[in-house]
């Protein structure tokens, strides 16, 4: 509209301008506006202040013509093609200036200026658009160079190294004139190794067994025993779950991922069985597309793609195109940071400011993932679940069931077709006759008399069959202006079936929009009121919905877009477990005139009820969260400035060019590219994947990586302290068949790992311990604190087989974590983390976390002093100790220290404990207090 009207207006204006082709008009009318309204975001100066917006500068003629992210700002002489004018008119995505539209007169000045060829004296070209690090230069950056296999360096002290790993560490220490720390004592080593490999402390007996084992390979035997124990999967699987932002609910609405536990089980199993890391990554990115040898493999692989599904997405985002890209962005962030330690999502809106990652590479990767769907669109979108292969017996049952359902559906359809040919006479009384009192209606019923009406509704008793005080109709008029809302008091949160009672007949509308507002959003059902209601001749079911007490729970019937009378008699909300059996209260089927009529409304209703019952009793295939491939793979176009509504150049699917060594996998047009992405990620030539995981393993075992920014191997991350050692480990990791257990074994059997924390010379010269010339004292994670407490109290329960919450749980709000299994099995609810997790720096389950924060804050202290868990478990620990045979309290104190801190008490500590025990009247309470204090103490929280 604007365009067609505008052109003549501009023509007139230009004609009226005496000197439009010199700079007068520009100087008087245009420049001041640009300076005042635009320069703060669109000029060299703005760029210098980092305030440049949209890549657009308006402070020179060249810059104006070059334009910004969306193209040239204007085309001289062509107002209709000039984005600048469109923006000024507030006539598109960009509305400028953002603070408010300029007066029409000013906009007309601009139109005239452009129409006159946009004369503009401003010279000196603006600087070229900023781009990230150039790709070729980028390839020289350490992390993008191919992984090398450097020889181990020569060292002066040839006796110290236990292997090549140690030579790299020792050479660096010797270069600084330092010596490594002596080996830690065996008890310290046992505690370190047990926690690092299994997440649990050794019992005093286990420590003694190792301390007293005189065989030369005692240490290696212990390592192998722990690597083979289920504790390894529980510990190292949990590390991966941090990277996979593993959770069992989504923050908004607290909706529970009831199948997510399968992914957790898959991860733990993969670490237990030492599934090669490259395969592990491939399965998570594209397991659903990879060939599977057996149904069990197929199951594992489909479950693995849960990795792509666990994002804490904003399912309520109403702009579903935006949501789709947000999901892709989230997946990409998790893969890129977790597997590659790259911050690619910076490139969603602009070329990466620091790293050689152009926006086009981002959309090349995003295009691959966008070909897999994770959500089904709805007001509150739903994540997808797919059936897993079931056993042969179940498959047969499923086949039979499907056939029965199809048969019944066909019969219902046929019966309805007959009924449609024999419509009941106009306004004929429906099957049920007479007046039904509201109190006789099942559920929480609202009569139309109590409903809120908008517009003129007529109350009627004409049909003679209704609930309560008659029914309402819209007089077949005022279409779109009338509505009637039934709003009951829901007594308790739960699932309800909603029935609508109406007065049917041929004069009625056949497409009445009835909207149910429930805790899960709103759903509109079109009701055909020409048909008599199917249930008892009075009601139709609108479906089952979840309502919350005090939450939104109402049914709105509108007459919008209807032809024919819209009627409303009552609405009832029946608790799902109290829905009357079909026909239980049904009136006898009405006698039709035609005896041969094969099925009437009541019979159809009965069949529909049977269908519902059949469907509810369907044999269950297990389900898993997984993506589903789009039928037709596509490339994306660059979303300019990250906006899904502003599409730029096409971005053919591909990979990060800077991290591609040699030819990239070919991208077949008929495939999504996910298999190729998996191939590229796990190629032995990928310079990042092996380095990143080797560094992570080091970080988990030393508390600090060779690259300390474990999730960022880009230019804003840190550089490796021992680049050659990192390459050595990465090379070896790949050569060992990507075996995580072998990688861990290599590290923990080194002398470097076995050092003690005491090395004053190294501590003085290298306070941050970048050279690894001593052991770091490390913090126990939340899970290890909890599991250690439970193992000391003797209450640790075995792992649950499935999720650790009740099957029907719909929302995570206020979930109480009462299970006493190992922490890795507690449900990770984003709105209801176990309190101990929250207090002790558990990984934020919404984002990839390679390195947990370590805080020391008062809420941790309050937890240990006052939380019932701390108090109760201390009591159990005390009871357990008191039940054991010990000669005296002194022996018990030693035992308590060894159980909790893995060491014997010092003389001072014995004295403190003895004094305390002597002063307490009740020994049970005294021992409980001593255990609680030991759990609370600083030493319990650290491993050395």
């Amino acid at each position, binding site marked *: 509209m604007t365009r067609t009207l505008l052109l003549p207006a501009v023509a007139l204006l230009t004609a009226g301008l005496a000197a439009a082709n010199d700079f007068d008009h520009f100087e008087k009318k245009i420049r001041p506006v640009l300076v005042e309204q635009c320069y703060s975001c669109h000029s060299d100066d703005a760029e210098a202040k980092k305030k440049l917006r949209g890549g657009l500068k308006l402070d020179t003629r060249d810059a104006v013509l070059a334009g910004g992210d969306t193209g040239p700002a204007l085309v001289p002489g062509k107002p209709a093609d000039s984005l600048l004018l469109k923006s000024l008119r507030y006539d598109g995505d960009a509305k400028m200036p953002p603070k408010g539209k300029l007066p029409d007169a000013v906009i007309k000045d601009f139109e005239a200026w452009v129409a006159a060829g946009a004369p503009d004296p401003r010279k000196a070209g603006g600087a070229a658009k900023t781009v990230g690090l150039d790709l070729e230069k980028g390839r020289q950056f350490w992390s993008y160079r191919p992984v090398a296999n450097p020889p181990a360096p020569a060292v002066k002290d040839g006796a110290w190294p236990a292997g090549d790993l140690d030579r790299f560490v020792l050479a660096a220490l010797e270069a600084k004139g330092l010596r490594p720390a002596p080996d830690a004592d065996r008890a310290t080593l046992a505690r370190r190794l047990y926690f690092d490999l299994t997440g649990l402390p050794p019992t005093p007996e286990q420590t003694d067994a190792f301390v007293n084992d005189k065989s030369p390979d005692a240490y290696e035997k212990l390592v192998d025993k722990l690597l083979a124990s289920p504790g390894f999967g529980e510990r190292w699987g949990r590390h991966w779950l941090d990277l996979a932002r593993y959770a069992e609910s989504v923050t908004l609405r607290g909706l529970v991922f009831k199948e997510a536990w399968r992914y957790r089980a898959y991860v733990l199993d993969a670490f237990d069985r030492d599934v090669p890391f490259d395969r592990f990554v491939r399965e998570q990115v594209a397991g659903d597309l990879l060939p599977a040898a057996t149904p069990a493999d197929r199951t594992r692989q489909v479950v693995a793609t849960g990795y792509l599904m666990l994002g804490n997405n904003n399912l309520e985002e109403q702009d579903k195109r935006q949501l789709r890209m947000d999901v892709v962005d989230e997946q990409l962030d998790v893969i890129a940071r977790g597997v590659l330690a790259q911050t690619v999502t910076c490139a969603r809106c602009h070329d990466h400011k620091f790293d050689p990652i152009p926006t086009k590479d981002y959309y090349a990767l995003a295009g691959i993932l966008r070909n897999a769907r994770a959500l089904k669109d709805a007001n509150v979108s739903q994540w997808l679940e797919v059936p897993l292969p079931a056993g042969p017996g179940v498959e047969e049952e499923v086949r039979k069931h499907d056939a029965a359902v199809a048969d019944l559906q066909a019969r219902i359809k046929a019966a309805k077709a007959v009924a449609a040919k024999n419509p009941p006479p106009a306004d004929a009384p429906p099957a049920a006759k007479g007046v039904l009192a509201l109190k006789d209606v099942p559920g929480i019923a609202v009569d139309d008399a109590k409903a809120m009406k908008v517009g003129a509704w007529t109350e009627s008793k004409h049909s003679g069959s209704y609930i309560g005080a008659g029914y309402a109709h819209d007089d077949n008029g005022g279409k779109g202006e009338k509505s009637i809302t039934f709003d009951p008091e829901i007594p308790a949160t739960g699932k309800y079936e909603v029935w609508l009672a109406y007065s049917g007949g041929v004069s009625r509308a056949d497409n009445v929009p009835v909207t149910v507002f429930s805790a899960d959003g709103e759903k509109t059902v079109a009701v055909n009121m020409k048909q008599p209601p199917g249930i008892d001749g009075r009601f139709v079911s609108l479906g089952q919905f979840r309502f919350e007490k005090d939450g939104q729970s109402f049914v709105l019937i509108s007459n919008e877009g209807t032809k024919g009378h819209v009627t409303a008699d009552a609405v009832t909300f029946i608790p799902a477990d109290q829905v009357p059996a079909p026909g239980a209260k049904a009136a006898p089927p009405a006698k039709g005139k035609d005896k041969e009529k094969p099925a009437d409304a009541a019979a159809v209703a009965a069949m529909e009820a049977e269908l519902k019952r059949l469907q509810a009793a369907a044999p269950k295939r297990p389900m898993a969260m997984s993506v589903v491939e789009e039928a037709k793979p596509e490339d994306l176009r660059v979303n300019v400035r990250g906006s899904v509504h502003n599409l730029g150049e096409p971005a053919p699917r591909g990979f990060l060019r800077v991290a591609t060594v040699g030819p990239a996998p070919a991208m077949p047009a008929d495939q999504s590219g996910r298999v190729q992405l998996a191939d590229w990620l796990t190629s032995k030539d990928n310079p990042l994947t092996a380095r990143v995981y080797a560094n992570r393993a080091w970080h988990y075992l030393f508390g600090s990586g060779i690259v300390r920014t474990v999730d960022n191997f880009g230019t804003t991350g840190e550089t490796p302290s021992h680049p050659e050692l990192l390459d050595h480990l990465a090379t070896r990791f790949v050569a060992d068949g990507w075996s995580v257990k072998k990688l861990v074994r290599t590290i923990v059997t080194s002398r470097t790992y076995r050092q003690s924390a005491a090395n004053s010379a190294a501590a003085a010269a290298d306070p941050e311990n970048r050279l690894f010339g001593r052991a770091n004292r490390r913090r126990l994670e939340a899970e290890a604190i909890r599991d250690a407490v439970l193992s000391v109290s003797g209450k640790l329960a075995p792992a649950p087989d499935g999720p650790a919450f009740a099957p029907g749980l719909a929302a995570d709000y206020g979930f109480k974590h009462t299970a006493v299994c190992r922490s890795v099995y507690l449900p990770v609810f984003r709105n209801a983390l176990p309190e101990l997790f929250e207090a002790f720096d558990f990984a934020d389950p919404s984002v990839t976390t390679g390195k947990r924060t370590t805080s020391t*804050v008062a809420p941790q202290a309050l937890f240990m002093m006052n939380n019932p868990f701390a108090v109760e478990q201390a009591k159990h620990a005390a009871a357990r100790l008191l039940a054991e045979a010990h000669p005296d309290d002194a022996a018990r104190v030693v035992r308590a220290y060894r159980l909790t801190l893995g060491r014997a008490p010092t003389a001072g500590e014995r004295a403190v404990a003895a004094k305390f025990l002597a002063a307490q009247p009740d020994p049970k309470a005294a021992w409980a207090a001593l255990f609680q204090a030991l759990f609370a103490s600083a030493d319990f929280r650290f491993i050395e």
Partner: protein
Amino acid sequence: MLLPLSRREWLTRTGCGFGSLALAGLASADAARAAPADPLAARPGHHKARAKRVIFLFMQGGVSHVDSYDHKPRLDADDGKQMPFHDSRMIANSGVRQASNRRVMKPLWKFARHGQSGMWASDLFPEVARHVDELCFVKSMHTEGVAHGPATLFLHCGSTTFVRPSMGSWVLYGLGTENANLPGFVSIAPSAGNGGPRNYGNAFLPAVYQGTPLGHAGGPAADATIKNLAGPLPPAAKQANFDLLRELHAEQLKRTPGDAELEAVANSYELAWRMQRNAPDVLDLAKESAETKALYGIGEKATDTYGRQCLMARRLCEAGVRFVQVTYGDNSANPAWDQHSNLPKHGDHAKAVDKPIAGLLADLKRRGLLEDTIVWWGGEFGRTPYAEGNGTGRDHNPTGFTVWCAGGGFKKGFAHGETDEFGGQAVTDKVHMHDLHATILHQLGLDHEKLTYRYAGRDFRLTDVHGHVVKGVLA
């Protein structure tokens, strides 16, 4: 005292334990400011502050601005007519900016001018209306997110989707706290729904900046307290256990003398112990006079809960807490102020908060606290000027709504910006939620463009790359 450390030494030393983390993340411009090793130590902002603290009265769900403060005579004139509107939900769903016919719905409450300033207010909030001369209305608000979850997260954290620190965490990070014995950022009765803990979470900021929840939405105010502040043990046992722990720590420190990390843990218990002793006093309303309680509506059925929570907020602020949020809401995904149907129910909610808010304003003023306290009232968005689905309520409206601020250097008895003649969309002097955040930070002495934290390779801000300080609302 068994720990031979002065407070000064403690502050310096614990810096190695948890302060270093905070320091490592501070952008260089802020490094000097954060020089005190205690990451919670009170410190000046980037420029002179007009306010020291914030009380945010969160009306969860979205109060109808056209029924409360945004007076639009056209709604009465055209009541019941079908007219074209740009409905946010429809635009978001379809991706097409297209008008659709909607039934205009007049306000259910009567508007009048109030106070010396003649500010418009309806009789939805009659008590607060007596204080309009203290209020600065922003009537041209707009924000992101059409549904509660996204918009609520945006209101608190400046992002509809991503995990970002809450505004209170940013403020605490920027300014520290004035009372080391209390949490610096408190959220009273937060809702579990619509982002739940993320709305008072520290996200990637160090954990010391996390918000502390007191109770939960819909719960009784009397139960609202800090987690684990009290435990099952009797006081005497607690004292004995604490003394024992002190002695154990003293022995553990002897094994590695001068160990900063061990000392940090030991000292976290000292702080917890002091908090355990001080916080209950601050939260205990029994010490307040009957007159003060009555001022807040405490003891009256409708207003007792929110009245207690508002009074608690005043006591916390008085004690030096930097950021206090008081939520009026519900603990589920469907919040209180959310009348998609049955708009008259707005009246019940208004009744519950009106007197407590008026009482809070009066009480802050007479104590001289309003001068340097920003009281911010508002929801995550407003409501449509037309009926939803032709029914009896109004749908969400993120494109135009009203909030007000009082105290803290905001203009008094003033209205900034306008919506269109129906109250549908902000049109004049528009203020985005990012702008409001920037402005509140500005009054606290913080420059929203300089208050940054480096995470995952880049500097993050509450206002992302947006936001302008709205000078027009500042006195």
